[in-house]
C-alpha cells in the first residue's frame, strides 16, 4: 500500500507580495496565499474539504475562508510541517477521507502583525480576531464562553435547569463504580443546582474537573494486532470537522456543525446505524455537551436529549450507556480530555472497564476541540472484519 500516483498537487501559489508586508496580519497571509492557489487551479471553494496548516490553527483558517472541512491537519513540527501535511493529505485523499486538501502557510515573521491565536500561537490577546472581538467582553476561560448557547437552547427546546443538572447526576452515578474517578459520592439535582454559580446557567457541578494525568494509544495494522496480548480494538470508522475558533460566530448556538459533519462521516465509514452502538463517550467539558452530542450524532431528535437523559437512558442499566468512566465532570479532565474518552471506549470494547457494560461490541468516542471549534469521532469494535 502506498500513495504512489494516487494523489497530485493541482494548485500552488505564494502570497501576492513577499518581503515586508505590514498591512496584512498572519491569518490574512494564509488567506491571500490560499486565494491565489485557488485561482491558480480554478477549484471552487465548496470542493475543498480538507485544511492543513501550521502557525495558525486549521480551524481558524477554514472558518476565515468559509470552508467546512472533514479533514484537518494542524501538525506543527517546525519548518518542515508542510512536507508532513502533504504526506498526510496524500494518505487521507487516497483513503477517501476527503477529496481536496488546502495546505497554507502565512507568517508575519518580520512585521509581526496579528501574530498569535487561541490555538497554536500564543494567547487570546493581541490583534487576533478573538483578541479583538471576544476578549474585550470579559471572558475568564471556557466556563464563561463554552456554555454561551445554552440559554438559547433552553428557549428553543424547553430544556430545564433540572434536566441539565441530571447530566452531572447520571455521570456521578457512573463514577461511583469507578475507583479511579476523582469525584465518586452520589449527587442529586438539588446538589447541582445549589452548587456555586460559575456562569449562568452553569453551576460548579455542571463544569468539568481540572486534573493532572495523561494517556497513550498504540496502533498498528489489523493483521499484526492478533500477535499482541490484549484483544484487538479495531477502528471501524472515523470523522472530523471544525466550525469556528470564535464561539460567537457559531452558525447555530443550539447545535454543533462540527459534531454533525464528524459524526456523519464516522458512522458512514463504519457502516453502522445508531442501533449498533453499545457504548458511547461524548466529551463532557460541561453538562450541555452530552445533550448537544446525542442530538448532533443522531442518537435522538433535536430537542430530545434532555428528556432522554432525564428518563435514565444513559445511566447504569440504561439502553445507551454514556460516559461510563464518569466523564470530564466526575472522572478526570486534564484540559484535553479526548484521550480519556478514547481510553474508556477501548476498555469497554476490551471488556475491562471498571463499570463494564455487558457485551459491548461497538463503541463510539466523540470529542470536541476548543469551544465547539472542532470535533473528532472514532467508532471501534472488537469484532474482526
Amino acid at each position: 500500500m502506498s500513495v504512489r500516483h494516487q494523489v497530485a498537487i493541482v494548485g500552488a501559489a505564494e502570497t501576492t507580495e513577499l518581503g515586508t508586508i505590514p498591512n496584512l496580519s498572519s491569518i490574512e497571509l494564509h488567506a491571500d496565499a490560499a486565494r491565489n492557489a485557488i485561482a491558480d487551479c480554478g477549484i471552487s471553494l465548496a470542493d475543498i474539504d480538507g485544511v492543513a496548516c501550521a502557525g495558525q490553527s486549521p480551524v481558524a483558517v477554514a472558518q476565515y475562508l468559509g470552508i467546512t472541512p472533514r479533514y484537518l491537519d494542524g501538525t506543527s513540527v517546525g519548518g518542515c510541517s508542510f512536507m508532513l501535511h502533504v504526506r498526510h493529505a496524500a494518505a487521507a485523499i487516497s483513503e477517501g477521507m476527503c477529496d481536496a486538501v488546502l495546505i497554507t502557510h502565512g507568517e508575519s515573521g518580520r512585521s509581526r502583525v496579528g501574530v498569535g491565536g487561541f490555538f497554536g500561537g500564543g494567547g487570546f490577546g493581541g490583534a487576533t480576531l478573538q483578541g479583538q472581538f471576544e476578549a474585550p467582553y470579559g471572558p475568564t476561560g471556557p466556563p464563561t464562553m463554552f456554555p454561551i448557547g445554552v440559554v438559547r437552547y433552553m428557549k428553543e427546546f424547553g430544556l430545564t435547569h433540572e434536566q441539565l443538572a441530571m447530566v452531572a447526576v447520571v455521570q456521578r452515578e457512573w463514577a461511583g463504580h469507578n475507583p479511579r474517578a476523582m469525584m465518586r459520592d452520589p449527587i442529586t439535582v438539588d446538589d447541582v443546582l445549589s452548587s456555586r454559580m460559575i456562569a449562568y446557567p452553569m453551576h460548579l457541578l455542571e463544569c468539568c474537573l481540572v486534573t493532572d494525568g495523561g494517556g497513550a494509544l498504540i496502533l498498528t495494522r489489523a493483521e499484526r494486532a492478533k500477535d499482541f496480548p490484549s484483544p484487538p480494538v479495531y477502528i471501524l470508522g472515523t470523522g472530523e470537522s471544525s466550525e469556528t475558533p470564535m464561539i460567537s460566530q457559531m452558525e447555530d448556538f443550539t447545535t454543533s456543525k462540527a459534531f454533525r459533519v464528524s459524526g456523519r462521516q464516522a458512522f458512514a465509514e463504519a457502516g453502522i446505524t445508531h442501533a449498533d452502538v453499545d457504548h458511547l463517550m461524548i466529551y463532557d467539558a460541561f453538562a450541555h455537551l452530552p445533550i448537544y452530542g446525542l442530538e448532533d450524532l443522531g442518537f435522538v431528535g433535536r430537542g430530545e436529549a434532555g428528556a432522554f437523559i432525564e428518563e435514565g437512558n444513559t445511566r447504569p442499566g440504561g439502553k445507551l450507556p454514556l460516559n461510563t468512566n464518569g466523564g470530564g465532570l466526575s472522572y478526570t479532565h486534564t484540559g484535553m480530555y479526548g484521550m480519556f474518552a478514547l481510553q474508556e471506549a477501548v476498555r469497554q470494547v476490551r471488556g475491562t472497564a471498571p463499570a463494564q457494560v455487558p457485551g459491548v461490541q461497538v463503541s463510539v468516542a466523540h470529542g470536541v476541540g476548543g469551544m465547539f471549534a472542532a470535533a473528532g469521532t472514532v467508532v471501534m469494535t472488537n469484532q474482526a472484519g
Partner: protein
Amino acid sequence: MELPVRRPSRNHPPVPSKPVPQPSPETQPFWDGCAAGVLRLQRCRACDQFYFPPRPFCPRCLSTDVEWKDVSGRATLHTYVINHRPAPGFEADAPYAIAVVQLDEGPRMMSNIVGVENTPENLPLDMALQVTFESRGDMMVPLFEPAR
C-alpha cells in the same frame, strides 16, 4: 551600585483595566468607526450580504469586491452567559453577561449588555438592543443596551 527602589503609591494603587482591543490592518476601519461612534460592517457587493468579523474578502464567495457600510446599531439579544468570575477590570460589573447579539443586518457579534442589571429576569432572549460605546484606553468598544 545602588538599585532604585520603586514603592507602590498609596494614592494610586494599581487598578486592573479591561482589555483594549488591538486593531489589525484588516479590522482598522471597524475600530475607526467605533471611535467615531458608528458601527460599521463589511458587505459583499457580489452576494449583497453583510459579514463579520472583518476580512478583505467575502467568506461566502471569496470576492474582494467588498465595502464598509455604516449600519443601524440595532440588534436583539441572541444568547449569553452571566459570568460570576470577573476578568481583570470587570470586578465592579460582576456578575455580568457575556452576550452574543444578533445585528439587524445579519451578522452576530459578542458584546456586553449595559444599562440594565444583568440578571436572567432582565435579559429575555430576543429583547431589542441598540449599540453604545465604551471607552477603553484610546479605543472605543461597541456594547449594547436595551433599545429606547
